[in-house]
């Protein structure tokens, strides 16, 4: 029988189901989502500033911020009550499945553009919740996961120092000395590069350095391996990174606590072998 005839005979639903299509709800406007409403500021100019971020409109974001600055609004308020609120709303929509990674990236670009304008007026870097350092293990070129981690940390209000990929362990140690991060994140995708993590820990210990936690993640990395040496926690999803950082900054959690309370901290069930 010919291919086309075979094809026309098939009841696809008994072979595969596109669940993403099946479960799709009605289209909504982002600003009409209940959770977004509770986050978005109601007063101007903050409302427009937040909305421009939500709509991923880089130019509008910039214009709004410049206008507000000219009107004498404090740059700190613009960041905290406008730009960051917009980004919080974007994060909510991503977690709920309405927004996708490109939305996050573009909204993040818009937000950063606005923050830079504010910093020009401030004359210095704006306050962040804390500094994190992110690297990809020495010998490993896989950096997509790390890029996501950096992006989520920044969107979550942290300064994230991006050390790139294939980062020598000595450089990681130097960065810890220089930035005293509240969280160090390492990514490795190969069996033969995840072995770098315990080396980083040993090198830090040798220098008498400590960080509250080293989040170790990436394709090949296994939880049992990560928990076989100190200072480390196993990281599952890139968007967990700011939640781990929050737990450290707000609740003073250490790597020991995070290992035990991971599911609570990230706010979703994570299976043992993820």
């Amino acid at each position, binding site marked *: 029988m010919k291919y086309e005839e075979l094809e026309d005979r*098939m009841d*696809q639903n008994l072979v*595969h189901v596109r669940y993403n299509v099946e479960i799709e709800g009605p289209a909504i406007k982002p600003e009409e989502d209940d959770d977004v409403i509770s986050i978005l500021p109601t007063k101007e100019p903050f409302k427009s500033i937040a909305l421009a971020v939500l709509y991923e409109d880089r130019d509008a974001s910039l214009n709004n911020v410049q206008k507000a600055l000219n009107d004498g609004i404090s740059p700190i308020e613009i960041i905290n009550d406008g730009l960051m609120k917009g980004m919080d709303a974007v994060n909510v929509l991503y977690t709920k499945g309405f927004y996708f990674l490109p939305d996050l990236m*573009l909204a993040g670009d818009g937000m950063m553009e606005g923050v830079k304008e504010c910093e020009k007026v401030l004359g210095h870097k704006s306050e962040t919740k804390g500094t994190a350092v992110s690297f990809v293990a020495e010998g490993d070129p896989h950096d*997509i996961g790390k890029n996501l981690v950096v*992006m989520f940390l920044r969107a979550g209000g942290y300064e994230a120092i991006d050390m790139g*990929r294939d980062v020598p362990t000595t450089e990681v140690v130097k960065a810890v000395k220089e930035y005293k991060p509240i969280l160090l994140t390492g990514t490795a995708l190969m069996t033969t590069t995840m*072995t770098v993590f315990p080396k980083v820990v040993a090198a830090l210990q040798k220098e008498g350095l400590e960080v509250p936690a080293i989040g170790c993640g990436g394709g090949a990395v296994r939880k049992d391996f990560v928990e076989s040496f100190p200072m480390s926690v196993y990281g599952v999803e890139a968007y967990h990174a700011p939640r781990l950082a929050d737990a450290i900054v707000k609740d003073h959690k250490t790597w020991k606590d995070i290992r035990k309370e991971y599911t609570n901290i990230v706010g979703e069930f994570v299976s043992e072998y993820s």
Partner: protein
Amino acid sequence: MKRFTKMAYKDPDEMVFGRAKYPTSQRWNTQIGAGYVVPEIKVAPVEGSEESKEQMVSECRNITQSACERAVSIGLPAFMLEQEHIFQQTNNPGWTADCTQAQAEILERYHDEYDIRVSLMATPADIRIEERHPGLRGSDYDNKVMESIEASAANGASCVSIETMGGKSVSDYGIARGDPKAILFGIGVLGSIDMEYMWKRIVDVCKKYDCRPAGDTDCAQANTAMFMAGGLLDKDCSHTLAALTRAIAGARSLVAVECGAIGPLKDCGYENPIIKSISGVPICMEGKNAVCAHSDLMGNLTASVCDVWSNESVYHRQEMGGTTPEVWLQATGYEAALMNTAHQTGQEKTLRDLYTLTDKYRDPQALVLAYDNAHRIGEAIVKYGKNPYLRSRAAALEAGAIINEAVDAKKMYLTRFERDSLDSALKIFEELPTDSEQFIDECLRKYSRKIAEFDPKSYEL
């Protein structure tokens, strides 16, 4: 350099697994694409083996020995072992030499003793780093890659392949932001330029030895899109955009063949069916028996026109059924046996069609790789065969048309996100300049400003 402007296969129905228009023959009496499918096994070295050359050589020896033992104990007529080298092996070509030699020795011993057809594909790592001076060309790392290719060829590899990553800085940016123009530029233009630079040299090295230049894969780019696209419920990259990205990769990975590679093209190049339709070279593919390595949405479909069937990669460790080289070679071995039985009984086209139909409408990424559609994309590519930019653009537009037709026929269903990103990508592609220079100028201006890692000098632009 020759460019393809005609199809090797006039009719997609001629394409089938186990048979290629231009089969290749290798040492140890192995032919690829000559009427039978060869199972492939690939195992990642265990943690800690990167510490010293001795440990790595011993690791490679163990993997090879296990695979050979299982192959003869279950009666496989042929198999291919691929070794993907890690950073330390490529950075130390002496390691490559010794590892390859150890593997070749064992394979040869089994070939001599049992007359089993064996093949060793060596895959040095592309360890070049664009953002580190002097970039992709002429760096120490660049030299090490070439030395490792030579060390593989000189020490008994049947063939060499590589996953080159030119253009990745730009395509990564495009994939994360859903920017189709950056994807087209990063893969179709920059990727093609870099492949030409790499593959002319690889082919020259291979000519000196009894070693075939096999092929490349767009793992660094199209697979990045595919992995980000993930499963049906993931939210990182649109599956329609990933499908267009795959079509563009077809135009890019073809460059290896244009430079003299003869196959089998490397397993993780999901774009390979497109290249087979254009060039007639045999291809490795992976799908359901690579679940140990990753998940995809076309586990059967990818087998339909393969010549080598791979497990992609697995940790080296013990499973209940044996060590992983044993277990996973057994999995690919039995699947190849099914395909070979189909050939022997004249049922190969039926099996091919069943493989295809199980996944064709599971996802747009699968749809564009169904062999009839892969052939259509191939035709779009050869129409503009001489120009890497125009043929990549044509591939993307054709893939878009294929998806849209299936949607209209109510066979393919899309989410709003998939629908919207497809519409906007196609609109962008349609409006792009038809002049290559103009496109490149625009992209250089836009992306060298936005992407810190992107270095036009690495592409002589």
